[in-house]
């Protein structure tokens, strides 16, 4: 359970300044606002053939773009911050297993990401005057999708922290690996927003769950190689 201590340390440091959380929330908000400007009133037009409003088609993609882009900000700082002042070496000297460092980072990143998502969803609902039909289903999809994002992202963040162009490299290598998560999250979210049942998205939920499990297990094994000297 030592990873809880590492997560606690990260979150303590974060909540003293709230730098990262504030920028993530504001960034997600800006993405949603820009979409709201760009689509304007046309978003609420009803398309008779599809029995949908335009916003119903755009909403899931928009939400996940906001989530992943804002989450990327947090991930790129997650290990870069440790690199300064040699904190990473201090962490490695701790009498804990290397995978505990990974698990602690996953936990603290996940907390920040969920806080950002909790702040973004209401803003999205207000700006597009949108009704979410199946909220428990949507929460389940968001939780599974976010963990998939965090499991891969934390590992690759540790991997890129040692490279010359880490801020640029992380998104470039993270998004291809994430595409299965984003694709299934977006389709599942679309179904949940349009009053679908959980049983309608069992395929997507299976992909998300399998993806989460595979990457969690693989990361436990390979993480130590990313921070070794």
């Amino acid at each position, binding site marked *: 359970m030592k990873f809880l201590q590492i997560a606690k340390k990260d979150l303590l440091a974060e909540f003293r300044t709230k730098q990262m959380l504030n920028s993530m929330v504001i960034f997600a908000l800006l993405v949603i606002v820009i979409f709201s400007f760009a689509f304007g009133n046309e978003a609420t037009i009803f398309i008779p053939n599809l029995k949908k409003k335009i916003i119903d088609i755009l909403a899931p993609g928009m939400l996940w773009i906001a989530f992943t882009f804002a989450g990327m900000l947090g991930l790129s700082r997650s290990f870069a911050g440790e690199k300064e002042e040699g904190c990473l070496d201090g962490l490695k000297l701790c009498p804990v297993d290397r995978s505990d460092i990974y698990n602690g980072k996953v936990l603290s990143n996940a907390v920040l990401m969920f806080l950002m998502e909790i702040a973004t969803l209401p803003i999205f609902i207000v700006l597009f005057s949108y009704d979410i039909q199946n909220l428990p289903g949507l929460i389940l999809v968001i939780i599974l999708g976010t963990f998939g994002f965090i499991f891969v992202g934390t590992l690759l963040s540790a991997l890129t922290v*040692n490279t010359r162009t880490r801020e640029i490299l992380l998104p470039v290598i993270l998004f*291809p690996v994430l595409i*299965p998560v984003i694709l299934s999250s977006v389709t599942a979210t679309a179904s949940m927003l349009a009053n679908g049942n959980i049983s309608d998205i069992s395929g997507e939920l299976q992909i998300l769950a399998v993806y989460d499990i595979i990457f969690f297990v693989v990361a436990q094994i390979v993480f130590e190689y990313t921070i070794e000297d």
Partner: protein
Amino acid sequence: MLKKIVYAITAALILISVYIDFFIAPVPINTGQAAGDPNNFKIFYFHLPIAISAYLSFFIVFISSILYLRKKEQKWDIVSLAAAEVGVVFALLTLISGSIWGKSAWGAYWVSWDVRLNTSLILFLIYISYLMIRQAIEEPEKRARLSAVFGIIGFISVPISFLSVRFYSKMHPCVVPPCPSGGGGGIGGDVLIYLLINFAAYFLLVATLIMLKIDTEKMREKVNEIKRNNNL
């Protein structure tokens, strides 16, 4: 000497298989899901072997990455690099040949919602990022270690791509069962023989290219060493 024999066999087999594809290989009367000009079926003879060759190269990256992390021997890093570069080329060829066929069979180069097409594209992008990681790190030991980690993570996309046609794809033809529509299994006789010749040719081509790349890398190491020793 052995290498030269392999190169010669590869060259001969590739020429034979290209000749077979264009002039001999039969077009089954019932080509399954494909529409358009029935002759477009012929892409199958080389599109499938090229795609499987890309998977094979990525599998080599995966295995040699694991071996590198276990043994920390530089030769496994060179094998990973060689296999990744060859795999990227084959993945790109798969995308290009598939798109050309798509224009004939579906009337569009790319069907953006088909899962199989997207997973093939992701596969290509993941190994492009693998090469980008290698470019971004200067120190050889660190480069080998970190790219080996990514080589292991990235391989997860290969089974996803391979299985996607079995479970989700709605447009891409499925030949080897189990298939979502219950079809498939439509190969036998002449088609199978010519297909296997193509498989042999392209697998040998992968092996040849990887061997050549490994030799080039070893030579580069040697040149660097000589440069260092003479303070050039």
